[in-house]
């Protein structure tokens, strides 16, 4: 019987060996080599921890790492605040209206990131529209240049993360049983109370996984700090770029990449750990 089953199926071991060999050569071996370079001395080729020591002992590099995380965290906060209501609205739409709403929501993701950041570069300068709006709202008193500032980079990060967050939130919100919300209304709770006591708690696993995804994406964002940071806002990714392409300290660049890799891995592991835990609680 077993023999027969084997003869029946067209899938054999080559279906995995071939792609695995391909991935090994172009992906896994380069990553392994990078790990090795980060702990190997430039001249002697012996094991050394000097690059990691240089990173963790220098307050400048620690500052860069914490800036990376803080900017990313701010963008996540705004993605939740801005993305949740949009997802809520889209989840309650139907037909062509919903088509249009989703199309415009993900349109930015399908436009090359270079073009999106170019748009922000036209918005953020001193004479740009962002400064004009903030002046009109009396948040700033004089025209200000936001290109090359933390605020500018956060704007770019929100713009990249928001569509993902909203799209992820649509199905958890949709899955909330309408009768549960209705029951809340029937028993006299208003919209606000129903939202905060019923809808929000029911969709909180979705919020956590969406937020962590955006956090991981934005921590690793490259074009945003490169184009909107203007060389002034240093985060991990553009520092790696600088070390690799302009300073040519490849061992140190490898060490920086390893640090960023571990940070991303930590966020992703945390995400899967939390989503498993919440699934058990349910």
């Amino acid at each position, binding site marked *: 019987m077993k023999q027969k089953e084997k003869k029946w199926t067209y899938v054999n071991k080559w279906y995995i060996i071939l792609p695995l060999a391909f991935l090994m050569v172009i992906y896994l071996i380069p990553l392994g080599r990078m790990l090795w370079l980060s702990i190997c001395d430039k001249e002697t080729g012996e094991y050394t921890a000097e690059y990691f020591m240089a990173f963790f002992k220098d307050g400048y590099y620690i500052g860069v790492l914490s800036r990376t995380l803080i900017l990313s965290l701010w963008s996540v906060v705004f993605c939740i605040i801005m993305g949740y209501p949009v997802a809520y609205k889209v989840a309650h739409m139907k037909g062509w209206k919903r088509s249009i709403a989703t199309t415009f929501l993900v349109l930015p993701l399908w436009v*090359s990131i270079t073009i999106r950041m170019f748009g922000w570069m036209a918005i953020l300068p001193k*004479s740009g529209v962002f400064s*004009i709006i903030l002046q009109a709202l009396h948040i700033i008193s004089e025209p200000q240049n936001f290109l090359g500032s933390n605020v500018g980079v956060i704007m770019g990060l929100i713009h990249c993360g928001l569509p993902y967050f909203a799209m992820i939130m649509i199905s958890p919100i949709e899955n909330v049983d309408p009768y549960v919300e209705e029951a809340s209304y029937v028993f006299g709770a208003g919209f606000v109370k129903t939202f905060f006591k019923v809808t929000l708690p029911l969709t909180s696993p979705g919020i956590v996984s969406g937020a962590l995804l955006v956090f991981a994406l934005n921590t690793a964002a490259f074009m945003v700090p490169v184009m909107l940071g203007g060389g002034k806002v240093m985060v991990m990714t553009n520092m790696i770029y600088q070390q690799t392409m302009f300073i040519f300290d490849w061992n140190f660049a*490898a060490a920086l990449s390893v640090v960023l890799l571990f940070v991303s891995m930590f966020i992703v592991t945390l995400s899967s750990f939390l989503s498993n835990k919440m699934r058990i609680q349910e």
Partner: protein
Amino acid sequence: MRKYKVAGTIFNSVVYLFLLLPLIVVIITSFGEGNRAVFPTHGFTLKWYSEALHNVDFFESVFISLKIAVVSTLISAVLGTMVSLYFWKTKGRLKEIFELVFMAPMVVPTVVYAVAFLLAFSSWKFVVPYWKLVLSYCAIQIPYVIRSVTAALYGLDVSFEEASLVLGARPMKTLYKVTLPCIKRGIISGIIFAFVVSFDEAVIIMFLRNASTVTYPLRLYTHITEQFSPMVSAFSAVFILISFVVIYVIERIFGLSNMYQ
């Protein structure tokens, strides 16, 4: 209830405006008369479009991007579908490890991979830059193909295949005549995703930049950092329009919500 609805509509309009503002600004600046693309603009002119039309560099870089994207998408579609079929047919501990390995490019920051690839292959002078880009793009495209095809296979009834086999079709014939046609939609949406990933790829190219392979995101980047003229806006505006049409067609055929789960 009513006032919350109104407040919600206003808030959502502001969010949509925020999302679309950069794209709108790019389109508006392409008609501006000034030499630098800063919004708000003044005047109205079409000269940037005619200038963009006569810029050979831009069209060359789009052609290079297409040449890379077509080949890398083809490779990753074949490999990704093979892996998905393997995952579909097997179980066990080893499969879980393979899954982690193949999905890794979605988790590992592209910057990290770009550095790793540069360090590993900088000494390989005999591999032309074109193939370096094709191969490195494949690695980040394969997870997208696997995700779409696996989703399609998940909903596929095994009895279709069994029926074909019982009726005497050879396994390979079953694959080509039954299984692959059944998951056609998954493969196509995987190909679309993979193609866009490759065509718009802007991170790896920054590290593997080379005079002979200036892809279109890199060409845009160099123009933006060096000149910042509205000609780039004109060029970008055309691409925004193309993206809009493509994405609306995809929404009508596949439903975008299904693609972002």
